[in-house]
């Protein structure tokens, strides 16, 4: 399932980067990565990843049948600079669907890194038989990621108005985007 990794990519500025599955020994590196994500963005994560105990438990208990976590690391020193997770539901009726969540280190944004990770996730999803990919984005916070997803044919399926609250207590819209992984060409 996760064969073929690591995969070499290059950021827009020519930095050599590797995409690979998250490993147990990445715990410290992943903590450092999340520490570099602005608090205003970390706020929207479901787990408190800033807490080392939470991180330890999370990474130790990753169930690869349900979550496929990938990271982008700088080739020169293995620093994690982006993270994407593909979540699958165990129930048969939802097994063809996966949810993805992506985060990129602020210092590496606008370098096409997120786009490469999205593309890699799409190919990974394809290889494990996923038919639909779902991504949620918070308007005004994750606009760049939303734009990248749109360019990879994710389409807006729903807007949950005033659905989440930011750190300042303001309501924000949550956009649900879906990409269908087509199984063949149309006959048109």
């Amino acid at each position, binding site marked *: 399932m996760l064969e073929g990794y690591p995969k070499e*990519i290059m950021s827009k500025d*020519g930095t050599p980067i590797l995409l690979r599955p998250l490993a147990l020994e990445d715990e410290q590196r992943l903590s450092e990565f999340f520490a570099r994500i602005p608090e205003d963005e970390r706020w929207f994560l479901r787990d408190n990843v800033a807490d080392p105990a939470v991180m330890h438990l999370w990474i130790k208990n990753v169930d690869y049948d349900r979550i496929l976590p990938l990271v982008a690391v700088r080739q020169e020193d293995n620093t994690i600079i982006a993270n994407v997770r593909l979540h699958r539901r165990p129930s048969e009726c939802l097994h063809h669907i996966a949810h993805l969540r992506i985060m990129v280190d602020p210092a590496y944004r606008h370098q096409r890194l997120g786009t*490469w990770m999205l593309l890699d996730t*799409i*190919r990974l999803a*394809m*290889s494990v*038989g996923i038919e639909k990919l779902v991504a949620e984005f918070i308007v005004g916070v994750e606009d760049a990621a939303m734009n990248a997803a749109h360019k990879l044919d994710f389409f807006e399926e729903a807007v949950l108005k005033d659905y989440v609250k930011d750190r300042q207590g303001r309501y924000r819209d949550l956009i649900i985007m879906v990409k269908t*992984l087509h199984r063949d*060409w149309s006959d048109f």
Partner: protein
Amino acid sequence: MSHETSQGTISASDLNAELIETPKGSIKIYPRCGPGSFSGLKLDVGIGNFSHYSSIIQKLEVFEKVASAKDGRVALALKEENSVVGYLACWYPDGAERWSKLGELMYEMGAVEVSRNFRHVNVAQKMISLILADDFFEDKIAYMNGFSWHWDLDGSGLNMAEYRKMMMHLLKGHGFQEYYTNEPNIALREENIFMARIGSRVSAEQQQRFRNLRFGIVDRD
């Protein structure tokens, strides 16, 4: 070096030809057919135009052209000595293609096909294996573009994801691996795939240039 079969002429590498026994009869694989080898041959009816699929090569003259070009290679799988049931054609990339920027380092496995009537009997596997046995490939980065618009989904009964997997599996067994690239034709569809095999004598510096070129960076010599 050429000799006459009962129906046509096959030349040069006959000595390296291999006969494989399949449930569909004996098939002889010729790893390198030189110019002048193709008269008297015919394409099996499973190679051609179908409702959702057209073969990349549909005329024997194309084989002649490939075999006549510098370092061009054509491997053929023949049934009953003159019926082409599979082919693999290789060439240097065209000057207009990105990969030509590395001169003769890059070498394209340009077209591989097995007739719809002779699939699943390891013909492609054998053609690739025999062609790669040539020491020539140890100085090259052999690559193959997998463009989904060329895939015979109807004939294979596979969907795009399955076809992609099948192609990866086929080539991985011969030392190829998937490489990411922003080459526009590959990038056009997410199911497209670019696979390459780096020859054992390709230097670290050449590999670095290949890596850069995959992302559109052209190094000077």
